[in-house]
């Protein structure tokens, strides 16, 4: 009540007192409201990461997470997908509270920016040693400069992939690291690992995180010459403690990821990254895309040349906007140099050293983001010889975030130097801050045109949709009709592993990784990349173009693709877009359907989606006189009867040495409710007996598999074992097989993907790390 009777000057004084907090609140509200302004209530989904886990986290959790063997619109491969698990669990919980899908989607859009905005200011407070509270305005402006940077917005929000979370995570980790460095308090490590676990997204973030660390660590190492030995020792000690604990906390996905490098197999993630094609692509990609110059990054703008050369949406924004306003950004350069010229007199010794570290990191990241700087271009190509460096074959993308962040920190530091140089009442300081704010504001104006852009190579197709009920209902029908042990071919089959879902009321589309497995639990093959760079990708395209239906049907059969899912309402402009190869699309007509399918089995309510059975059906597991049931993505139970001679066991998914078979006791106890029986294959598929995890699964980590030496590649693609009954009889007691009267035996086998075990060990290490650190922090506080 008191406030009501306050005089106007008193009210103004109070507002001024809280103005910093109010400014923060206002900016956070603006960031939270931004997607409502951009997307008008439609979902913002699609792209390489689908972003469906923000909207349908539960479906995502149940159908794609937890297992090290992944099929996300692709043939199976070994990938530590569990990296998403903590986030999806948190988001599933949130989805129980927030029922509106678009609110969840928009929150996921804004949250990285809000986190980045908050933690950036906290980081600056840690970096300033002298009178830190006097420079809150500079820190706030620096934070806005960072989260609205045209470089970051264009690179990370045009197609917001997982690394958008690094916008919040990098300042947060840097902030907690600095606090730990200064105080040695482990609570900062605990906060870091909790944040890092929730927003880790593991391998998805590695390239961008490394791209940030590369210039930072280079700079820290070189600038160590400026520090005393004692300080260097403390730094190294705390650096190692901080990052080793953080690494251990990431074991739940990291262990499996590292093991893919050690147990290298043709269908592992690492085989793609180190493949010859991938490596030879490095020089070509760098040469084709790194033709920019340092001027635009210095003006805090994205590389103009690449946008123009490749006809990106940004090209139009440059031509209509930035080409007219770029000179305003000279204020950034002026502030940067004012900082360089004045830092010696206006900083204390620690701040001076920090400034030099930041300046070198900035100069290094300027090169890495640009590459095309005379002889340094060849130097970068030479770096491509370092194993794994091929990840940076598109430096304009990978180094964008690191550059944007380092530039923002440095320029904020320069603003603080400028603030110290001029008195608070000095007009020059006011002019500089006003011009700086104005430049940030002007640069943020095209944000809607940047983010809400048409699908690449189209002019009128936008990417914000509400997923139609017709599609969701049809997915539910598929779930009830098709067992998860099948694969579906999505038609039209495209260039990547994308699919198109058209909005009900407009021509807007979902264009991203096919979500069939997310909604139905059944994997689909939707494009060239679905074959994980295997030769079948090319063969399949050629067979469609040449109408070679014999080859097509053979690939469908050998890859256990038993259904065809047809989408009929794709807009013509999308069909002509980059998503489809014209010749391949042309070949997917009625004749194609007639020659690859036997009958139509499902139609959607409005007739836009149809499901067909293929000409010839296969099963996931086949062997003579066998019965199998799927337990989950990495485990199958198999009963094989009357084995009298050597016989083959086929597992029709990508070959990987991690797939192993284990002999079980008491084969007579195997229960089977028939789901599908194919006489020609002499195999029966039983109803699935889904179980996500049993403690007994851990035994596969140490139990010896059988017939490992006979595990071979079948049809250049799948897994094959040769079962020898005499080996069983000679090496196992009768508990492990059932002897029949004719001398043959019955066997019960478990087919298991052994690298799944690394996930369980990783979870144990993560739990122990977090638990023991939390306990340590609590005990130390007491």
């Amino acid at each position, binding site marked *: 009540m008191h406030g009501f009777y306050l005089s106007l000057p008193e009210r103004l004084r109070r507002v001024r007192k809280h103005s910093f907090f109010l400014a923060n609140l206002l900016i956070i509200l603006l960031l939270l409201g931004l997607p409502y302004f951009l997307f008008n209530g439609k979902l913002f989904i699609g792209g390489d990461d689908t972003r469906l886990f923000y909207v349908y986290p539960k479906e995502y959790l149940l159908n794609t997470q937890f297992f090290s063997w992944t099929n996300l619109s692709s043939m199976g491969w070994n990938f530590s997908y569990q990296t998403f698990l903590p986030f999806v669990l948190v988001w599933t919980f949130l989805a129980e509270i927030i029922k509106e899908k678009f609110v969840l989607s928009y929150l996921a859009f804004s949250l990285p920016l809000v986190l980045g905005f908050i933690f950036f200011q906290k980081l600056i407070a840690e970096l300033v040693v002298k009178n830190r509270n006097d420079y809150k305005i500079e820190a706030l402006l620096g934070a806005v400069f960072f989260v609205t940077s045209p470089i970051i917005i264009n690179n990370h929000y045009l197609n917001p992939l997982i690394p958008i979370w690094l916008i919040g995570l990098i300042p947060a980790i840097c902030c907690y690291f600095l606090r730990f460095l200064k105080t040695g308090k482990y609570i900062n490590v605990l906060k870091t690992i909790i944040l890092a676990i929730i927003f880790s997204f593991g391998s998805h973030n590695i390239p961008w995180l490394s791209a940030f660390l590369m210039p930072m660590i280079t700079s820290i190492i070189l600038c160590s010459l400026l520090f005393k030995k004692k300080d260097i020792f403390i730094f190294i000690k705390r650096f190692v403690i901080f990052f080793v604990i953080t690494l251990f906390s990431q074991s739940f996905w990291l262990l499996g990821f590292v093991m893919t490098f050690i147990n290298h197999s043709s269908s592992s993630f690492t085989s793609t990254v180190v493949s010859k094609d991938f490596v030879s692509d490095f020089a070509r990609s760098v040469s084709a895309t790194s033709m920019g110059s340092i001027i635009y990054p210095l*003006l805090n703008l994205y590389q103009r040349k690449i946008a123009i050369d*490749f006809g990106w949406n940004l090209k139009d924004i440059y031509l209509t906007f930035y080409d007219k306003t770029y000179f305003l950004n000279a204020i950034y350069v002026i502030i940067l140099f004012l900082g360089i010229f004045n830092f010696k007199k206006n900083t204390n*010794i620690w701040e001076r050293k920090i400034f030099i570290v930041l300046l070198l990191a900035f100069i290094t990241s300027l090169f890495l983001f640009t590459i095309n*700087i005379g002889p340094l271009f060849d130097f970068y190509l030479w770096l491509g010889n370092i194993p794994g460096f091929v990840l940076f074959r598109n430096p304009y993308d990978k180094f964008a975030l690191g550059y944007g962040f380092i530039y923002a920190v440095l320029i904020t530091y320069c603003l603080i130097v400028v603030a110290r140089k001029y008195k608070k009442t000095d007009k020059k300081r006011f002019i500089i801050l006003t011009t700086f704010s104005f430049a940030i504001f002007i640069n943020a104006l095209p944000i809607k045109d940047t983010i809400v852009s048409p699908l690449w190579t189209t002019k009128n197709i936008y990417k914000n949709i509400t997923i139609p009920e017709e599609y969701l209902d049809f997915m539910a029908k598929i779930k009830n009709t098709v067992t998860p042990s099948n694969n579906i071919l999505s038609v039209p089959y495209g260039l990547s592993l994308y699919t198109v879902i058209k909005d009900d009321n407009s021509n807007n589309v979902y264009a991203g990784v096919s979500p069939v497995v997310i909604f139905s639990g059944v994997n689909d093959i939707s494009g060239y990349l679905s074959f994980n760079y295997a030769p079948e990708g090319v063969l399949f395209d050629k067979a469609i173009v040449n109408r070679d239906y014999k080859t097509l049907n053979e690939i469908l059969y050998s890859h256990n693709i038993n259904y065809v899912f047809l989408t009929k309402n794709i807009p013509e402009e999308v069909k002509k877009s980059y998503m489809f190869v014209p010749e391949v699309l042309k070949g997917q007509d009625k004749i194609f359907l007639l020659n690859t399918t036997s009958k139509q089995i499902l139609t959607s309510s409005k007739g836009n989606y149809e499901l067909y059975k293929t000409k010839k059906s296969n099963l996931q597991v086949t062997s003579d006189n066998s019965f199998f049931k799927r337990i989950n993505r990495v485990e199958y139970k198999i009963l094989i009867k009357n084995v009298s001679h050597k016989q083959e066991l086929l597992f029709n998914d990508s070959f990987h040495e991690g797939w192993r078979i284990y002999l079980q006791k008491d084969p007579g106890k195997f229960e089977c409710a028939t789901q599908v029986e194919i006489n020609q294959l002499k195999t029966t598929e039983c109803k699935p007996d889904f179980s996500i995890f049993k403690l007994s699964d851990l035994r596969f980590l140490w139990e010896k598999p059988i017939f490992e030496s006979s595990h071979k590649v079948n049809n250049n693609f799948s897994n094959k074992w040769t079962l020898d009954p005499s080996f069983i009889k000679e090496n196992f007691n009768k508990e492990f097989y059932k002897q029949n009267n004719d001398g043959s035996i019955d066997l019960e086998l478990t087919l298991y993907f052994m690298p799944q075990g690394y996930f369980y060990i990783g979870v144990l290490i993560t739990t122990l790390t977090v638990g023991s650190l939390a306990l340590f922090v609590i005990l130390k506080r007491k």
Partner: protein
Amino acid sequence: MATGLLIFFWIFSSIFLFNRISFSVVTYQTKNNIQINKDSELRSNNIFSGEFVARDNNLGLIILDLNQYKKSKLDKESTVIFKFREKRKGDWSFQREYLSGLFDSQADFSFGFPVILNSKNKTYQFEIVQNKNRNNKIAFSKNHLITGYQYSKSEIVTAKPEIFKFFFNKVISSFTDIDFVVKSVTYLIPLVLVYVFLLMIIKNFHFVKRYTKILVLLLIIFEILFPHYIYVDSLFILIILWTWAVFIYKLKSKTSFLLSLFLILFWILIIPFGFKDLQDKLNIWIYALLVFGFLQMFIEERKEYEKKNL
């Protein structure tokens, strides 16, 4: 004596190490007699043609300058066909196809063909076409080309008049090539440094100071007038001279940073006017000055910390 040795070092190091193709190939800048090419860009309906007189025997290749063709992701691979014959000798005697990707990011491209033993003073013609329906923007320099003459190993190593002929031709052809001359300056640096050192010994410091200034200015003018020559060497020389200037004039890091700020602001001003070559130069200069300025700053700071025990 020392001067003679250093000049010898300059000429022979350059000749041995800066070869367009290989040591045994003598190359000459040669005029393209056909100046009617409408467009230097090799479009689907355009034929790029050339005609020249061979300056020596053993003609085996021609090199054409490219206007830095960058294959974009949207370009589809095309085939570039090279045809070659002696003038007025009927059909094309040699024909070869190249994939357009080979031209990607190349400053020039060598078209080889079987060595013609008695080629001296004969006129030859060539044509380059791109297969239909492709428009990869490969562009050649219209006015001149480089012709290459392959000397056999026996001609070079045997002590006959041929060896002198070879070396004479090699020196003449090399030092009449401006590209070669620019590159070879690297090996002239020891000679320059020796002279500078000698001048310092005789205490003629003002002389050195004055000529350093002139050298830096000359180089900057050269860089602006000939922006096409973006090579490690010229940058290398610039850095050496800038280091020298910093040493002579006791310049602080601020000078390097100030110069880079000036160039950045100048660049911002000229963006609307294009000047691509100059912008390419500024791109290198500014970054080099930033790095240089940082190194100076780093050394300055370190000295100060050591002095004050910070």
